[in-house]
């Protein structure tokens, strides 16, 4: 109970103080914190180590894709050393929750920092960075006025001019899942089939390749996570592809999250909660997102200036957890539509 009081503070100084005060009986400050992370090493390791130094503990982590980490947690069961699970998409968080691998956390700090549609209502997981999946267009051949919605990419004018990443990519699966939730299976399948009919090339294995193909002139429009373009624009200032925020007159642009939750059997639960709160705190949020050109989940924190330059947009604000629930249906739709 006494931890709860300290946790309510958003000030790092107070958190450290609280750590010192409670170090005796809980002996938590000395225990290592173990993180299973699908967010890759180069994006998180520095922050993990920084937290460890700040708290005087060791932060141990392993990385892998979300699904194998969930399998590892399942096999380790009650004896898993993991305290925190971090994913790069909402579907894996939903599935980990379904599998009973995460525990509910009640933290006013996290609830205040993270908007409701980016976290589990019961506190099993919290979004930490937002990735928007939207339309990308060639600045050489397309005017923003030509663009409007995702569905319009299936129009005849884009015949042979659309590039897509593989339907096996989870980000496309969650995009389709969102549409199934918003407009039903049939309308979504019609939209996806129209996209496939407009393809200029076989789907690409990742967004970066696709964006480069757009820049080289293989196609004019595509769908991408904004941060991939952010990286390319960072490498080459005049990269001839730009972001268009889709569906602004409708329900808003599709967003997914990279987020985390405390594992069901966390040995170091208090530290795990504190860690998530630290990651959600304004100063860390800025860096957590900035390293990958993403949007901070904490609404009060600004993204990088070059990310801000894409302009403000309306995100689809249906809870991202619903994406996970619908994902299998989305995968089957993608198979039926022949989106390879």
């Amino acid at each position: 109970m006494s931890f709860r009081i300290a946790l309510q503070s958003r000030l790092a100084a107070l958190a450290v103080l609280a750590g010192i005060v409670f170090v005796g009986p809980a002996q938590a400050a000395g225990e290592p914190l173990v993180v299973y992370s699908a967010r890759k090493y180069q994006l998180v390791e520095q922050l993990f180590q920084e937290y460890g130094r700040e708290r005087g503990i060791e932060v141990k982590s392993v990385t892998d894709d979300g699904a194998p980490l969930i399998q590892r947690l399942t096999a380790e069961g009650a004896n898993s050393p993991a305290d925190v699970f971090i994913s790069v998409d909402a579907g894996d968080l939903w599935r980990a929750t379904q599998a009973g691998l995460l525990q509910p956390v009640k933290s006013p700090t996290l609830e205040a920092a993270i908007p409701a549609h980016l976290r589990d209502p019961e506190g099993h997981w919290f979004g930490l960075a937002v990735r928007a999946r939207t339309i990308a267009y060639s600045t050489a051949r397309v005017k923003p006025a030509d663009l409007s919605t995702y569905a319009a990419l299936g129009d005849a004018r884009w015949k042979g001019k659309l590039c897509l990443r593989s339907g096996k990519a989870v980000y496309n699966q969650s995009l389709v899942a969102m549409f199934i939730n918003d407009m039903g299976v049939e309308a979504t399948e019609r939209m996806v089939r129209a996209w496939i009919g407009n393809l200029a090339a076989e789907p690409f294995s990742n967004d970066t390749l696709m964006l480069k193909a757009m820049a080289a002139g293989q196609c004019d429009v595509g769908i991408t996570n904004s941060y991939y373009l952010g990286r390319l624009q960072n490498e080459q200032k005049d990269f001839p592809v730009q972001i268009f925020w889709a569906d602004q007159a409708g329900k808003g642009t599709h967003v997914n999250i990279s987020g985390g939750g405390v594992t069901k059997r966390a040995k170091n639960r208090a530290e795990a909660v504190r860690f998530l709160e630290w990651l959600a705190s304004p100063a860390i949020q800025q860096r957590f997102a900035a390293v990958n050109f993403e949007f901070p989940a904490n609404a009060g924190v600004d993204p990088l200036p070059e990310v801000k330059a894409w302009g403000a947009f309306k995100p689809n604000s249906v809870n991202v957890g619903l994406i996970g629930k619908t994902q299998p249906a989305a995968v089957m739709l993608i198979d039926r539509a022949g989106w390879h």
Partner: protein
Amino acid sequence: MNAQSPPRAGPTVAAILVALPMLAVLAAIVHGATGADPALWAHLTEHVLARVVANTAALVVGVVVIAVALGTSLAWLTAACEFPGRGFFAWALYLPMAVPAYVLAFVAVATLDYAGAVPTAMRAWFGADLAVPPIRSTVGLIAVLGFASYPYVYLMARGAFLTHGARVLEAAQSLGYGPWAGLVRVAIPLARPWLAGGAALVAMETLADFGAVSVFNYDTFTTAIYKAWYGLFSVETALALALLLLGFVAITMAAEQLARGRGRHTAADSGTRAPVRLALSGPRGWLASAFAAAVFAAGFLLPGIALARWALEVAPVDLDARYVTYILRTLSLAAMAALACLALALVLGYANRLSKGFATHAAARIATLGYAVPGTVLAVGVVTVLGGLDGAFRTLAGGEGLWLQGTVLALLLGYVARFLAVAYGPVLGGFARIRPSLEEAARSLGLAPREILARLHLPLLGAGVGTALLLVFVDVMKEMPITLMTRPFGWDTLAVRVFEMTAEGEWQRAALPALAIVVAGLLPVALLTWRMERAARAA
């Protein structure tokens, strides 16, 4: 132990013991597969299976044909013919083995796809409308995997040609055959068991490949397995798909048996003389050099240069002291796994020599099945088995925690389950070349089976042992999914680092760890091939 009549049950029991880990992993996979979701399965049958079966079959056939054609012809040229640069190519043509298939795939796509440097330059020269055939096609992928895997065939075929050496050439020449007719009519029939073994390795490696096929976005069994697991959230359905894939493996193995024909691994002629090579003079010699150079360039030199250029760009930011740890971890895991696989392969091979029974044979088949199973499926089996064992340990010994999971032992179990086949093939070939009469003589001198193994077989196995060590070592260095899923904290390898970069679409940053894999792999490849070449010359 009675020297006169070696125990009959011993070899069978030993073989079954070696097969136990894989048997347990298989049992875990089968058990998991029984939980497959019928609704999902119906969906897969209707919309997915036909396509992935056709794709997988086309890929395996294409890659095996390319790998066998390249591997056999190059082995013949370097073993039986003389042409400018032969000495260099004989050794250098092994090197593509150190380049992981997924690395070759991403270099090919990054440089040869529409936006890559090569088509971009071609459009600049010949106009923007120039249509360059897309590298991201079935043919492109077959070429990439063919170049990545021909060294397996090259290694096996070269061993066979060197063993038969002068005899074959003399026979061919006395029959009035030129070098190519000699290859087709005499050398290949004699080398069939080795060629079939190499082709089987290539086929199994292709069936299990995930990295290269996903770079090309080519749908195979492996990608369908991943999709069922990652996308449909049904690991059980994924395991059921993996079982179906094992059906394919059974077909491959039967095909290998057929391809071996009645041919046996034949014993080396004790009177083998130093090989007399057929001199390819003039244009024919240069043509041979050009062919060898082209394969070396496509499989090693050009991708190596591309990797080095990208790696140099990111090295100032990414290269630091941690790489020492990654390299040491990678090498030590590869060495441990190579030794473990070799030891088990020796037991298995020896057991199969002593006992021709069905059980021993079946045990060998099961123990070596893992090479065709996608690493990630094996990893699921491994963590399940270890979870069960850890539970049993806790029940027996009390207490909490994990005994096996998250230890190096878990990793090694995974590697053995996956790569035993790679060590077993060469060891088996080595055993077969030792004449049974030698054993009978040793036995009549009163030596026990163990002593015969240590004092007779091991020294004579030489090249087979080297090949086994080399193949496992290099395969483990490149391995991703098992390492990712079962590694202990802090045991990040170079392949793990490649995974983390490519998973984020940062291929050029992945060039640094990828290049490190190639460079770190070169040393053992060079060392072992040099030793094998020397041994072959001595023979």
